[in-house]
C-alpha cells in the first residue's frame, strides 16, 4: 500500500477550499439581499414622495420602532434555537401596565424599571423551564404565557393609565441632536446598544454559538456535550427580558399603560426576524438581519403614511403586496447568490 502515503494530500486540496468559501458566502445571501432591498425601497420612496428623502425619515424608522427592534433581538435568539415566543407582545403590554400603575402610585422610576425587568425576565425564565423540563412545545407554553400576561393587564386595569412621571416624560421628549438638523431619541441609542450586545453574544461567546448549534441540530448539540438545557431556558429568559425592555421603551414612546397595547406585536417581531433572513427552523440567521427586517416593516408603514390616499382595506392589501414583492425579490437574490 505504499503509493498511498505519497498520494493523499494531493487529491482534493486544490479545488475544495475555494468552492467552500463560495458556499460559505451563500450564508449571508438572504440577509444581504434584505439590506439591498431595503435600500432600494428607500430609493423608490424618495422617487415617489419628495419629502421622503430626508435623513429624519430614515431616523424616524428607528425612533418609531425601538421597541420592535429590541423585541426582534430577543426573538432572534429564540428562533435561532428553533423555538418561538408568542408572549412578547403581551409582556410588552404587561410591562407598560405595571410601570404606569406603579409610577402613578409614586414609585421611583429606577425601582419600577428594575421590577419590570425582573417580571419580564422571570416570566421568560418560567416559560423556558416549562418548555425544557416538561418537554412541552414552545408554541403552547408561550401562548399560555401570552394569555397570562395579557390577562394580568386586564386584571391590573381595563382603563389606560397615563404616565406623567418626570424621568419617563423626559425620556419621551428628549432628542439627541445629530449633525444636519437631525435627531434621534435616547431609546434609539439603547436599542442599538442592545443590538450590539446581542451581536457580540451571538458571535463571540460560547453561549451564542450554542444557540446556533441547538438550531442546527439539537440532538447533536446535546451529544456534543453542550449545555443545551440551560441555553434553551436562558434564551426564553432573554426574550422575556427583551420584551420587558421593549415595554419600557414603548412606555417612553407612548407614555401610557394600556391593556390592549402591543396586540399582535409578536407577529411583527417574528415577521421582522424571518424577513431579516433567519430560518424559522433555527440555526441560520443574524441579529442585524432582524434589525433590517424591522426597518423594512417600518418603511412599509411609512409608505402608507406618505401615500395618504389608501382606504383601510387598500392599506392591508398594499402591505401584503409590498411584503410579497419583498420576499420574492429576496428569494431571487438569495438563490442567485447560493
Amino acid at each position, binding site marked *: 500500500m505504499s*503509493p*498511498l502515503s505519497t498520494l493523499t494530500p494531493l487529491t*482534493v486540496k486544490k479545488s475544495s477550499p475555494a468552492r*467552500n468559501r463560495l458556499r460559505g458566502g451563500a450564508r449571508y445571501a438572504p440577509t444581504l439581499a434584505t439590506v439591498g432591498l431595503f435600500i432600494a425601497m428607500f430609493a423608490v420612496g424618495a422617487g415617489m414622495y419628495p419629502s421622503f428623502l430626508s435623513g429624519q425619515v430614515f431616523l424616524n424608522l428607528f425612533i418609531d420602532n425601538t421597541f420592535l427592534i429590541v423585541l426582534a433581538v430577543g426573538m432572534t435568539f429564540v428562533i435561532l434555537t428553533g423555538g418561538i415566543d408568542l408572549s412578547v407582545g403581551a409582556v410588552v403590554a404587561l410591562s407598560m401596565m405595571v410601570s404606569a400603575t406603579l409610577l402613578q402610585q409614586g414609585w421611583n422610576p429606577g425601582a419600577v424599571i428594575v421590577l419590570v425587568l425582573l417580571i419580564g425576565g422571570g416570566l421568560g425564565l418560567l416559560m423556558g423551564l416549562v418548555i425544557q423540563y416538561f418537554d412541552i412545545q414552545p408554541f403552547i407554553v408561550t401562548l399560555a404565557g401570552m394569555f397570562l400576561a395579557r390577562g394580568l393587564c386586564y386584571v391590573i386595569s381595563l382603563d389606560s393609565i397615563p404616565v406623567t412621571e418626570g424621568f419617563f416624560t423626559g425620556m419621551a421628549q428628549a432628542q439627541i441632536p445629530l449633525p444636519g438638523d437631525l435627531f434621534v431619541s435616547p431609546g434609539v441609542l439603547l436599542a442599538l446598544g442592545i443590538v450590539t450586545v446581542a451581536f457580540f453574544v451571538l458571535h463571540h461567546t460560547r453561549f451564542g454559538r450554542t444557540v*446556533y448549534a441547538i438550531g442546527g*441540530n439539537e440532538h447533536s448539540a446535546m*451529544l*456534543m*456535550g453542550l449545555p*443545551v438545557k440551560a441555553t434553551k431556558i436562558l434564551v426564553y429568559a432573554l426574550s422575556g427580558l427583551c420584551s420587558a425592555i421593549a415595554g419600557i421603551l414603548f412606555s417612553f414612546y407612548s407614555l401610557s399603560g394600556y391593556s390592549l397595547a402591543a396586540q399582535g406585536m409578536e407577529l411583527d417581531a417574528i415577521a421582522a426576524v424571518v424577513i431579516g433572513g433567519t430560518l424559522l427552523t433555527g440555526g441560520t440567521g443574524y441579529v442585524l438581519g432582524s434589525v433590517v427586517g424591522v426597518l423594512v416593516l417600518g418603511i412599509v408603514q411609512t409608505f402608507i403614511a406618505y401615500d395618504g390616499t389608501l382606504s383601510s382595506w387598500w392599506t392591508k392589501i398594499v402591505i401584503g403586496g409590498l411584503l410579497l414583492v419583498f420576499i420574492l425579490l429576496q428569494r431571487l437574490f438569495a438563490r442567485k447568490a447560493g
Partner: protein
Amino acid sequence: MRMNEIVPVVEMTDIAIGFPGVKALDGVDFRLFQGEVHALMGENGAGKSTLIKALTGVYAIDSGTITVLGEPKRFSTPGESQAAGISTVYQEVNLCPNLTVEENVLLGREPRRRGSIDWKGVRTRTREVLAELQLDHIDPGSLLSTHSIAVQQLIAIARSVEINAKVLILDEPTSSLDADEVRQLFRVIRDLRNRRVAILFVSHFLEQVYEISDRMTVLRNGKLVGEYLTRDLSRMSLISKMIGKDMEALAELDQAPARTRASNGAGVTPFIEAKGLGRKGSVSNVDLSIYPGEVVGLAGLLGAGRTEIARLFFGADKADEGSIKIKGAGQRIRSPRTAIDKHIGFCSEDRKEEGLIGELTVRDNLVLVMQASKGWARRIPRRVQDELVAEYIEALDIRPANPDALIKNLSGGNQQKVLLARWLVTHPELLILDEPTRGIDIGAKTQIQKLVNKLAADGMSILFISSELEEVLRVSDRVAVIKDRALVAEINNDDVSVEDVMTVIAGGAQ
C-alpha cells in the same frame, strides 16, 4: 486477570436497559483500562451503541452500576460525561451542519480572551488538530454541510481527539473512511494509547479490530458473551461468538462470493450511457456506461467525487453539461423522480440526512419509494405491504423483525438494511449503491455482496461505491477510477489487485 491490580477507568456492572419491546442490554459487564484499545464487538443490534450511550449519559440505565476512575457515577447528560473526561464519537455523525468546521471541532471549548471567543485561536487550534490527522486540506472556515459524510466523520473524530480526554470512545468511526484515513486514525489512536488514554473502539471491519485492539468484549442480543484478549481469539471464534453459530456455518460466510461476469459484447446496448456528464463546480466530463447485468465499481479516494457522480446519474443534482442515454435513447434526468421513473435507484451514503424517515415505521420506510412511484392515490394494499416487508426482513435479517418499529429506534446496521430493501422492492434496472455496507456487520455484508451478485445475474445494472477497495473489487465487473472529480481510468476486473488500482489512482494514467 492480569490487570486485576489496576483499577479500570470505566467499569460497568450488570447493566440493563430496556426499550418498549426490546431488552437492549441485559446484565452486561464491561471494563475499560488505561492505555488499552478495547474493541466492542457484536452483530447489528447487539447493543454496542446502547452500551456506549448508557455510559455517557444519553440513556438512563434501568439497573446496574457505572464506576469511572473508581467512583460510582451516573451521568445524566453527555455534557457531564465529557466534563469527566470521556470523549465520544457517536455512531451517526452528530455535528451541526449549519456551523463551520472549526466551530464544530471546538464547540463548547473555544479558546477565549476576556470572555470573548478568540476566533484566531480557534482557527489555529483547528488547523493543529486537523494537521494531526493529516487533514490539512479541509478548510476550517467552510460549512460542515458542504462536506461529504466521510469528511464529516473525520471532523467528528478531530473534535473528539481535541479534548484532552482520559477515555476516548469511537463508535464505528471508520465506517465510511478509506484505507488511508483509517491509517491516519490508527496512528493517532496508538499515539493516544501510548499516552495512557483508554480507548473504546467499535467496528465491523475485523482486520481493523485485529490491527488496533488489545482486548475485546463481545455482545450478543444485549447479553455479554465474554471479554477476551485479542491475540487469544481467532477470527473464526470471534465470529462464532458474535453470531452464536458454530464453525461450520461460518465457513461459508467467509467465502467471497464469486462473480459471474456479465457479457457486454459489441451488440449489447448499455442500460445507461453518460457522455461528458458534469456539473459546474462538481465533477466534470464523465464518460461511463453500465450494461445490463453488469456491476461497475467506483474506486477513488475520499472526496474524489464518487458520490457526486452517483448523484448526477440519479438527478439528485442536475447535470449542466453532457448527455445521458438510457437504453440507447437520449434522456434528461431532472430530478430523482424522473430517475426513478426510468428505473434507477439510489441508496445514499448519508443515511441519517438522506435516507431515514426517522419517525415512520420500518414498514413505511421500506415501501416508501414504491409508494411514491405509484402516487399517493393508489396505496399499496396492506397485504402486499406485509408480504414485502416480511420477505425483506427475512432476507436481510432485519432485527427486530417488527415492521411496526420506528426506524429511528433500529440499530445503525439494521437501518441500513431497511434502506437497501426500500430500493430492492422496486426492482430497478440500475441500482446505485453508495456505501451500502456502511456499518453493516460481516454476516450481513457478505449477504449483501451475494445479493448484488445475484441481482446482476438477474440482469440488473449496478453502480457500486465503497470506501473498501477490496469490496469494490470483489463485487464489480469493471472498476472506474475517480480522481480529482474526474474519471481517470476504467479497468476490467480480471484479476486486478488492490495494489494495481492504487497504482492507477496514484499515477492517474492507465
